């Protein structure tokens, strides 16, 4: 589609949305409860929508069903113990949750993990992204009534989970990152196995692309639906693919200095100008494919050497405050860590991507049709563990 055509479509969608809100239908309002158990919500999220006919007048997300109080719990844990907790925030990309916290602790302790550890961290980080977003790509079809893609997603995601398991011993909760390095080195045969899986994952991306993205019904259900302009996205603090789908060219992997080695790779940040559901899905598809190329480059350049820096057996983090965030599968995940020189943190503020990402729901759902509500919710892609913490 050309740019002018895209602008035209966006304009028509905008006018149509305005007209839908402005028209006064003589119907009685109705309150519809979506959730807490709904397949579009990874976890339990309830959305109370007030309807006028088929249109949403007001939407109020209700969360807290999975609130586990991690910020309070970190205050009675030691630094190494915290990783066990934060593994469970975004449970589809667990390893990626550990990294910013460990980096914050390392920043305060002024130690740095050896190069090999940083490369392996980056590999596992990108594998988490594959495990996470591949499920989104499969799930996407189910929300719109296409059943097949989800089976493909679960089939191929299994290979990635096997890789993560072979390194860390855990499929969902690796708990593998340590202050100063990693728990273990890579197992024998990992590199060849990973190369094979990356080829499979690219085939999976191609399959999804032909199955869904070229599909007329899919386009009709997603194009021009749930448009979020860049300024709105920024003021709500949307991050990750949701922000890039609104045309903001910002990826923390490229744009913020990090000890992890993304800057040594040759890769591209994908953006889309439309800001609609289609754009969000499309950006994620491209990112999945890009991640497979990144992993291959990481395997090529993997340096040898130790995987652990010299760290005292009892970790005491010097007093101070540090903020570190990384580009996780769901968006910007960061920790504001305050240490008072003890074995555990004094306070940890967990900034999770999904909390900000779904705070836009009341804004974006206003005026849409009921049938589009689920499309919009699933295209924003959040994990309730990441919302409620």
């Amino acid at each position, binding site marked *: 589609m050309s740019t002018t055509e895209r602008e035209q479509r966006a304009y028509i969608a905008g006018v149509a949305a305005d007209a839908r809100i402005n028209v006064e239908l003589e119907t009685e309002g109705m309150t519809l409860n979506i959730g807490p158990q709904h397949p579009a919500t990874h976890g339990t999220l309830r959305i109370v929508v007030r309807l006028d006919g088929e249109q949403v007048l007001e939407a109020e997300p209700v969360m807290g069903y999975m609130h586990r109080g991690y910020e309070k719990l970190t205050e009675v844990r030691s630094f190494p113990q915290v990783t066990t907790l934060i593994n469970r925030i975004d449970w589809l990309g667990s390893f990626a949750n550990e990294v910013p916290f460990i980096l914050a602790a390392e920043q305060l302790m002024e130690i740095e993990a050896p190069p090999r550890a940083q490369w392996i961290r980056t590999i596992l980080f990108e594998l988490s992204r594959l495990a996470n977003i591949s499920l989104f790509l499969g799930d996407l079809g189910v929300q719109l009534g296409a059943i097949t893609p989800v089976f493909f997603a679960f089939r191929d995601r299994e290979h990635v989970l096997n890789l993560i398991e072979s390194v860390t011993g855990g499929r969902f909760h690796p708990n593998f990152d340590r202050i100063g390095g990693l728990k273990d080195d890579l197992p024998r045969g990992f590199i060849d196995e990973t190369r094979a899986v990356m080829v499979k994952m690219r085939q999976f991306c191609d399959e999804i692309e032909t199955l869904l993205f070229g599909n007329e019904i899919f386009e009709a259900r997603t194009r021009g639906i749930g448009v979020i302009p860049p300024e709105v996205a920024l003021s709500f603090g949307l991050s990750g693919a949701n922000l890039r789908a609104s045309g903001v060219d910002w990826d923390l992997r490229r744009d913020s200095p990090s000890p992890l080695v993304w800057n040594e790779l040759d890769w591209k940040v994908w953006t889309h100008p439309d800001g609609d559901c289609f754009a969000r899905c499309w950006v994620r598809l491209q990112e999945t494919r890009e991640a497979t190329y990144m992993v291959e480059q990481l395997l090529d350049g993997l340096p040898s050497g130790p995987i652990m820096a010299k760290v*005292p057996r009892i970790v005491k983090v010097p007093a*101070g405050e540090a903020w570190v965030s990384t580009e996780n599968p769901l968006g910007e995940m960061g920790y504001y860590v305050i240490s008072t020189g*003890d074995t555990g943190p004094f306070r940890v503020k967990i900034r999770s991507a999904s909390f900000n990402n779904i705070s836009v729901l009341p804004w974006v759902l206003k005026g849409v049709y009921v049938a589009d509500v689920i499309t919009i919710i699933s295209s924003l892609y959040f994990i309730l563990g990441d919302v409620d913490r």
Partner: protein
Amino acid sequence: MSSADPTGPDADTEAALPEPDVDRDALVLALRDELGAAVLESVVRPGVDAWVRVDPAAWVQAGEACRDRLGLRYFCFLSAIDWMPSPFGRSEGDGVAVSAGGPSSAGEPAADQRVAGGGTRFQLLARLVSPTTHLGLTLKADLPDEDLRVDSWTEVFAGADWHERETWEMFGIDFTGHPHLVHIYLPGEFEGYPLRKDFPLVARMVKPWPGIVDVEAMPGEASGDETVDAAEPT
């Protein structure tokens, strides 16, 4: 933090560190120009981050200045810190200090330790980032105990809505002008503010943490502070 770390009020202008961070210094100076005396303290850690502590009365003004003048249009998060040391300690057992042999004051925040200073128990904490330069600022504001109130940012950043609800329910800080200040995670009838340090973690009161055994000194080690060789398998 090392001793070279700047903590003084004029640390950003001092040549305390070899490489000054020109871009972050410029951000802080621009905010000083906008707000004048409302900027109470600022710290720039070159290449890492910048902190600014503002007068709570100028909280909204600071948000607007950051968004419109400094280009920090991305709202990252808003929260608070309770600086009171927990009366329950770290709840790691019956008075057994894990950091045996360490200084007894470990775990209690010293008055001069806060980045960008401040002296009240509750401190607001917010972070804004520029989507073009990718530089960010961490804003802080001291709230006096007797008046835990601040103007809401909901008009400045739409995303502040939920963050302020969370901060209100976890710390009991009132956001004046917030359109819908109700519980976000906790049930509506919940009493108390869980993230305050004097709110007990009941689960820990009932059953002490068994993880304390994990940090016992290894056999043959005099003290736990020895450095483990990287090559040694653990």
